[in-house]
């Protein structure tokens, strides 16, 4: 399955729950701060380590306290 996520960087507080939750290692905490002063989460540039990428499993969004992640999945 193929999916994708949108992280609203202005809402993210950098808790890293999504980083931990993602089974495919798609997300990381970036090096930039947002207006609130937090280093926010971003989708890794180089994709996940095993190359599988986002499957749209929603686990990151389920764990995101800030409701900062929207998840999209390819329709079948």
């Amino acid at each position: 399955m193929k999916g994708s996520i949108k992280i609203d960087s202005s809402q993210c507080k950098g808790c890293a729950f999504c980083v931990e939750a993602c089974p495919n290692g798609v997300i990381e905490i970036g090096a930039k701060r947002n207006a609130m002063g937090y280093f926010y989460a971003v989708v890794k540039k180089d994709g996940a380590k095993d190359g599988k990428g986002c499957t749209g499993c929603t686990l990151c969004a389920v764990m995101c306290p800030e409701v900062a992640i929207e998840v999209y999945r390819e329709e079948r």
Partner: protein
Amino acid sequence: MLIKTIFAGFGGQGVLSMGYVLAYAAMVEGLQVTYLPSYGAEVRGGTANCTVAISNEEIASPIASAPDNVVVMNNPSLEKFQHQILTGGVMFINTNLVESRPVRGDIVLYEIPCNDLAHDLGSDQSANMVMLGGFIEKTGLVKMESVRSAIGDVFKEKKKAKEMNLKALDVGFDYMRNNGGKA
């Protein structure tokens, strides 16, 4: 003489200890001083600030509605305090986190990349003391010696933090002296 300074930033940036150390240093010098932190963890996630008033006579109000100096460690603080500062007042800006600049032209501005300097020192948390060093250099409000002894007392039970903070203080002081810091 009555000088009021506001230190402002995010909750975790150590703005309260910056002010506390300054106040302590003034006490060491036998000056009258009040220190008033913004309080109330009643609401989370906001900004924090504190006001230090230093004088050689009784201080009426510890509140500064028109501060002489403002130290801003983040963007929201800049927005909040730029309109309160006295004409001719001095603003210190942490350039690492503050992108915008005040619109007012009647104040003196000093800039210092606290986070970078602290990072180079290997102590990200000491950005606040870097700033304080720079602040002392420019304002000369108290002697460095007094600040050092204040840090010694305040962190007396945390030896490592004490060392780091003393170092950071010097780094800030030197940076300001050498680079002028003027915007």
